[in-house]
């Protein structure tokens, strides 16, 4: 899993049928500084995260489980939680 910031939303009209009705977000991984600095990933979202929010993203079977449609769905990255706060060493915090 990784933690990242939602930097965009992706729409596709023509897509594989198991992806119908699923919302896709563009998520950039966070660095320790709290900045979104990594390579963006496209993640399915069933919990309603919005642009600017900090989220936890899961991969593979863990991601497909979130949709509740079994394992035969055409994606392998999904948002599993919206982060409120990240506590770092020495009590430092990254506010989400």
């Amino acid at each position, binding site marked *: *899993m990784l*933690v990242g910031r939602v930097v965009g939303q992706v729409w596709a009209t023509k897509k594989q049928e198991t992806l119908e009705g699923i919302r896709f977000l563009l998520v950039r991984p966070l660095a320790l500084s709290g900045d979104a600095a990594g390579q963006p990933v496209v993640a399915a979202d069933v919990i309603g995260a919005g642009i600017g929010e900090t989220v936890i993203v899961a991969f593979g*079977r863990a991601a497909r489980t*979130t949709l509740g449609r079994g394992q035969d769905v055409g994606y392998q990255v999904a948002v599993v939680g*919206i982060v409120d706060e990240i*506590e770092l060493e020495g009590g430092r915090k990254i506010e989400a």
Partner: protein
Amino acid sequence: MFVGKVVGQLWTSKHVNALEGMKLLLVLPLQRSAVGGKPVPREDLVVAADATVGAGIGEHVVVAYGRAARVCLGGNQDLPCEAAVAGIVDELKLEGVGPTDPPVPPSLFRGER
């Protein structure tokens, strides 16, 4: 699996139901250059669930992925987690670095200042 240092803990209020009560740690992987590979320039923090080990910030841990990770979380393969803490490192010896007791020198961790 990889070795890393727990650098943080995450708190969520909105999440998929199966994540309720799950402890989520932020782990900074040991730099690959320290174990003979090429250095990786980007910081790639990993979020790992911890249900059985009880690791804390500042500790060095072994993280497992995929099915193995879910076994470390109790065996439910329908959990929405694919990275989990499998153990806490007591000691780590690296070639060319000499015996190191925890904490491992900070320079061996990616992105740590």
